């Protein structure tokens, strides 16, 4: 029992940190530009495929640097030549634009790399068990993932809250004209922020690619849950996204390890139910519904704390 609790906690934190790596970029873009980027998970996927391709040519470590730069540059172009054109028509066209972009990227990826998973391997340097806990190995690569996430979280937080760049970026959102008058190029600031956000997603992609499966539908798998993270954490709140990622990782992992069901809990009270249509609901275990737990959490948060855990109410 203790073993399962300790291991589930670790697994939950690991999965949560991966979520955070992706959600951080989404949050940065939203809090700075006010754009909810539906194509964010697609940049994560691009990161994974760029990472795969580059690591085939130059090895994993150059890929970890080059792939996010490429994806970031692509993101910056999308902002400059796409989003900015749509921006003047308001938020809905912006949303639709990123929504369409997500489909376009998925199609392009499946044309270039095919629909089957590509063989993206963990680098040999990190391909060993870091430590063994109750006879379960923990791969060094996953620990590496954890460290990168924490470094990025700290780096982002410091940049945004403590440096001059963060100050200008934040000011550019609420008072673009004033920032412009002070001699800053507001358009370029937005472009850079979007680029950094997508590059962050790509970092997650390069790291998650070898750990999970790199294939053309990986964006679709993680896309919805990203929004859960961002909404539960509070739109635009980086610490919120951090807490929400961990929470969702843990909730999901622990739900998997529980075998209880309504039948187990109340079984003796109503044995007749077994044969009716209710029996399905009656016998579903918590483990079976684990993957929908994040969405249950989303609904609960929207009902009781619409601004999210650490979000501030919009005025």
């Amino acid at each position, binding site marked *: 029992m203790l073993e399962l609790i300790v*291991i589930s906690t670790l697994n939950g934190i690991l999965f949560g940190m991966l979520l955070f790596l992706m959600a951080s970029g989404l949050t940065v873009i939203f809090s700075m530009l006010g754009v909810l980027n539906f194509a964010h998970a697609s940049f994560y996927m691009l990161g994974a495929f760029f990472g795969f391709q580059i690591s085939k040519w130059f090895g994993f470590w150059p890929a970890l640097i080059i792939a996010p730069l490429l994806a970031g540059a692509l993101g910056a172009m999308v902002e400059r030549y796409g989003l900015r054109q749509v921006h003047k028509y308001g938020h809905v066209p912006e949303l639709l634009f990123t929504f369409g972009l997500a489909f376009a990227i998925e199609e392009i990826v499946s044309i270039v790399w095919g*629909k*089957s*998973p590509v063989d993206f391997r963990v680098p040999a340097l990190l391909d060993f068990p870091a430590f063994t806990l109750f*006879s379960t190995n923990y791969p060094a690569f996953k620990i590496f993932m954890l460290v990168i996430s924490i470094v990025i979280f700290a780096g982002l937080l410091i940049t945004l809250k403590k440096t001059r760049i963060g100050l200008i970026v934040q000011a550019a959102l609420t008072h673009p004209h004033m920032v412009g008058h002070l001699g800053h190029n507001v358009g370029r600031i937005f472009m850079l922020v979007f680029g950094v956000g997508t590059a962050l997603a790509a970092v997650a992609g390069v790291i998650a690619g070898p750990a*999970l*499966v790199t294939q053309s539908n990986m964006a679709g798998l*993680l896309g919805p849950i990203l929004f859960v993270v961002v909404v539960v954490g509070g739109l635009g709140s980086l610490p919120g996204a951090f807490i929400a990622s961990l929470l969702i990782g843990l909730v999901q992992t622990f739900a998997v390890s529980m075998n209880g069901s309504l039948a187990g809990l109340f079984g003796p009270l109503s044995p007749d139910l077994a044969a009716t249509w209710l029996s399905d609901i009656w016998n579903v275990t918590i483990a079976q519904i*684990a*993957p929908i737990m994040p969405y249950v959490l989303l609904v609960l948060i929207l009902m009781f704390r619409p601004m999210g855990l650490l979000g501030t109410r919009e005025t």
Partner: protein
Amino acid sequence: MHKRHLIKLALGASLALPFFGTAAMAQETVKLGYIDPLSGGGASVGEVGLKTFQFLADELNAKGGILGKKVEIVPLDNKTNPQESLIQAQKAIDSGVRYITQGNGSAVAGALSDFVTKFNERNPGKEVLFYNYAAVDPVLTNEKCSFWHFRWDANSDIKMEALTNYMKGTPAIKKVYLINQDYSFGQSVRTQARAMLKAKRADVEVVGDELHPLLKVTDFAPYIAKIKASGADSVITGNWGQDFALLLKAAADAGLKVNWYTYYAGGTGGPTAIKQAGLDHQVFQVGEGIANVDHKPAQDYETALRAKYDFSNFYPRAANQMRMFAAAAEKAKSLDPVKVAGALEGMTFQVLNGGEGVMRKDDHQFFQPIYISSFGTRSDKEKFDEEKTGWGWRSVAKIDTKDTMLPTTCKMDRP
């Protein structure tokens, strides 16, 4: 005004032309509508199936087609969704398709079988046949059997019967964990595994019985932690596609060393995951054939397929299906689906991997020799590796056709 009319007319004509085109083409070719996922979580599996059928169609065409007509595979993307499949099936029928094939997802197969049966009742003279090459829910050839449905894959009961017969003779198995996808096929694997193990090896303990959502899990680490905590020495799973690859990947990461009894370990990504996990001959698969089967025509076929595409022959049954389709049409001297169906009933056939198979008339289930194979390092006898891992399949047991015959509850309405 006049000009605008002209433009409209031209536009209308250019839009309508392709339709006339396909209607005219329908006379020339035998169309087989391939309804399977070509996008979404099942895309990688659907893609392999599509290429296999195209390969087989090319093979038939090289020999002059079926009754002198060229065979054409029409790809239709159903996104592993029953509702979408029906739309695609209707679309196919509207464009002149009289034969459809599908395999991924028993829920989809069930919906298609119903659809085809109802369609044929309402449209006598325009019947459509449904060739099922991989959906293995036993219900399709039992309670819900249909005259218009033919299945070339062994259903999951037949496979479980073979698998548990093999497990019966392996005394090392003491604690078994079941993990399956939460839909009709996964459910059927788990209930049959429990029932058959109980009957054949009452001493074996089922220490876990897990269902997880189909093609939705991104990280199986929590499930692996549970398997580990249960103390299981063997796992039985019907998982396919990314659900299998991710499951084994997580097992490899955690260093879980158990024996795996599977249906689809040979699927895309599976062999790579097994090699990475270092499970040398610890992953077993039940199926109708493997690359390294000792039969010359099968090995030639394997070589040709690999030369053309970058994958191994995952669907020997697709070859049986297409070749029997051609043989049945020749026997009936017609491409009318009713007559082809009649010719298929009870037909015996030399299967790709050697040995005789039979399409049972009672329930339209094809019976064929079944192999249990394990994946790992190769000996001289095993020529083919998988996914460039250097490892390959080795046959560890073969069950003859007559020993795979399970009873059916099918009561078929014949036209």
